[in-house]
């Protein structure tokens, strides 16, 4: 098991290394981030040269990559185009994103399991059909459409109707927050509501479909039939024998889906104006900010790798029949 994890990690590091080269070359070839500055006749030439030197723009490509890599190994992700420290910026944005993603993922898992189990137990009945159709419609809705619709047609009308702000449509927190952490908690809770609902609705649907089919599969399994035949109560069969086995695939899928959730978070952050990692990355892409882009991809790729590994390990834990050499 341990050797397996190490091996997987090593492979991932190599993959990650190549991914950074790929991104670096792509970005470096995308254009000069200081072109606008350079074209402005009112900015002294010395200013432009100094900025270029700061970003190593005049160095050869491989040298620039080496500068980045040797810094990255020591946790120094360089500076953004405007001279900000990328590593510390990334951390503050990551915190914002995780606040939304973790809350949403945890809730979505519970919703998915509940919906999936309910649909499986009621297989073929109205409840099943209603849940399944809802899931499919949600799957077919791009996340930005869902976010916009919730904002424009649900949140704002409700706020207007009640003449007070129930749903915050922009930003991750109120600007005037002051006082202790505890007194700020309600405000922390208010802002994520809408983006979290969006992420939950988008994420849960596919998981619920898994959960349902894996439940149905397990309900048919021999040991479950046996348990039923022994006369165990429906409830006991469901929880002791079915759910436990049916949870394995869905848990794994959630872990594996993390990359997609992070992708969805980019859009959610844009729709709801959260200054998270995705929004930051997008700014970086549009301003040709190499270090920002690399930092984002490094962070998300690390998460994806860790979660994939977690999925593998979860397999082993949830299904004792699997052993790792």
């Amino acid at each position, binding site marked *: 098991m341990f050797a397996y994890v190490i091996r997987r990690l090593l492979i991932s590091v190599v993959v990650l290394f190549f991914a950074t080269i790929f991104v670096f070359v792509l970005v470096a070839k995308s254009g*000069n981030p200081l072109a606008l500055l350079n074209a402005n006749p*009112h900015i002294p030439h010395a*200013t432009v040269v100094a900025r270029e030197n700061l970003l190593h723009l005049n160095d050869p490509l491989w040298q620039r990559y080496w500068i980045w890599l040797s810094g990255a190994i020591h946790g120094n992700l360089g500076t953004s185009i405007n001279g900000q420290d990328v590593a510390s910026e990334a951390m503050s944005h990551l915190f914002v994103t995780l606040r939304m993603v973790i809350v949403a993922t945890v809730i979505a898992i519970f919703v998915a399991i509940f919906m999936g189990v309910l649909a499986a137990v009621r297989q073929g009945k109205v409840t099943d059909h209603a849940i399944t159709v809802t899931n499919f419609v949600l799957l077919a809705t791009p996340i930005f459409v869902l976010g916009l619709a919730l904002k424009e047609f649900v949140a*704002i009308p409700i706020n207007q109707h009640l003449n007070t702000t129930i749903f915050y449509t922009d930003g991750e927190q109120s600007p005037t927050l002051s006082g202790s952490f505890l007194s700020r908690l309600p405000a922390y809770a208010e802002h994520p509501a809408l983006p979290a609902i969006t992420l939950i609705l988008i994420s849960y649907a596919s998981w619920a479909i898994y959960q349902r089919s894996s439940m149905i599969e397990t309900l048919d399994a021999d040991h479950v039939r046996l348990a039923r035949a022994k006369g165990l109560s429906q409830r006991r069969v469901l929880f002791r024998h079915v759910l436990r086995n049916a949870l394995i695939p869905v848990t794994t899928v959630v872990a594996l889906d993390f990359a997609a959730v992070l992708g969805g978070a980019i859009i959610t952050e844009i729709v709801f*104006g959260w200054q998270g990692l995705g929004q930051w990355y997008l700014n970086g892409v*549009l301003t040709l900010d190499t270090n920002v882009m690399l930092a984002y991809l490094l962070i998300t790729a690390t998460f994806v790798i860790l979660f994939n590994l977690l999925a593998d390990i979860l397999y082993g834990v949830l299904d004792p029949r699997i052993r790792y050499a």
Partner: protein
Amino acid sequence: MAVTGAVDEQGSAMGIKGLLKRSAVAALAAGALSLSVVAITPSASGASTKASSSSGGTATMALDENLAGFNINTSAASEFVLQEIMNMVWPQAFIVNNKLQPVMNNQLLESATQTSDSPQTVVYTLNPKAVWSDGTPITADDFIYNWQAQSGNTAYTDVGGKPYDDASTSGYNQIQSVVGSNPSGGAACAPGSTADRNVGLCPNGRTITVTFKPSFTDWRAIFTDIVPAHIARTVGWNTGFVGPTQAISGSWYTISSYNENQSLVLTRNPSYWGTPGKLNKIVFQFFSDDSQLVPALQNKEINIFNPSTVNLSIVQTASQVPNTTKVTLPGLEFEHFDFNQADPYLAKLQVREAIAHGVNRQAIITRTVGEIAKGIAPLGSRMLVSTQKGYVGTSYAYNPSQSDNLLKELGFKKVSGYYQPNYGSQKGQPLTFTIQSTSGNTIRAQTEELFQSQMKAIGIKINIQNYDANTFFGTNLPTGQYQIGEFAWVTTPFVSGNQPIYCSYTSTQCAENWTHSANSQVDSLMASGSAAPSTSQEITDYNKADAILWQNMVTLPLYQKPQFFAWSNTLKGVLPNTSSVGVTWNAENWTISG
């Protein structure tokens, strides 16, 4: 006070709204500038209005761009949104009021007078009580440092010997010397230090004598956003101002907290020596997308906003928000079509005229910005906008049959709806041009589509190809890789800022003439205007130059971009300001109720 016209970046957001929007890069063109109107009386409106009581409360304003540091005088941090904050934080010798006139800040300065014309000498007298929020007095040293840092003179360097990063050196680069005198309380002049490069300049003086050579008629435009010299010398001008600790206050409000990309809170500066600001707090909330502004106002998350690009939806949705004041004003930016005469077909005057006569500017306005603000008319000048004094509008008729005649005159033949040139690479093919602009801007995209359909009507084929702002402004325009461009120029109260845009491209001074136009008459008119003894004479000369530019159809001005301001009625004292200082120019006088 970031003045004058350079490349517009307003609304050039590529892709994502909210990026690269409005830049306050102070782009004051070199040359002798003169103010159109000057009011230095201390009782002038705005900055000098006294308030007897402080009323308290908090106002929240939306800003739609993120900050990249706090030293607004650097190219990295120079942004419109930062200007809106620093208006209330850093000392401003003059501030442009809502009538677009520079007004002396009579709490910082007791006087600012030009005492001699040759050499041009300006004497500033500081209020002896003026101090930075850390207790350090505001003195001649701050003026000396701000001049040196923005002089463009490589002899002066930032910490670590690095060259200064400046958003603009205009004005400062014409300063010969800055010398202090009269330290407060009759104290002796400090000798100054070699390290600080102020030896013998009496850095502790409260009277500052600034000598310009050559003359800089526009001297009121400088010594705005004065950076605290004692801090800058320690932390560094270029990258040292990263937060409230360094960006200390020398004005009404002080930055009490900054949450990157989220919010910035201004509270009353306890060390302020003059009339305190009326609000207890001004909160700036950062928005990534303009479309979120109205919902936020509706939800009472903000009290005021001034989007960097206004669109119909913002205006319409805002109009449905009750208890709100909405103001639309013609701004200082004007949209135009830019014709690159390096192109063999656009080099022909008749082709440019045919295009210009074929553009129904009123129809474009009606279908785009006209819905945002009623009564916008086609702009008749490149030098001044209709809201400025001295504006002379030239009318240029929409006349498609005239376009027909012009193209026929050239010997172009109309075949299946399109004219075919009789020379060059397009010989025997439909006359085709590509129009470029910044991507992700709906109004520009719509304008291009309307232009395309209007050109089709007169037999010219138009392709549309948009680029991100970096490529468009940074590469395509300056290197001449375009045929027709659509973008905006920003005019200023100072008409001579137009010189580098329209003087003959062959001169190195005319770095912003991307159209490859050259006309000696235009050159001499603008030169004589800039040296004119009176403002009215200067404007007359520039207007004459503009008339020639119309005859040569160098560019086709379309309309002044409207600016939109909306604030809840609980917020009082707001006076919208279309200049680059923004609506917060008098935020110290704002009050809030309820």
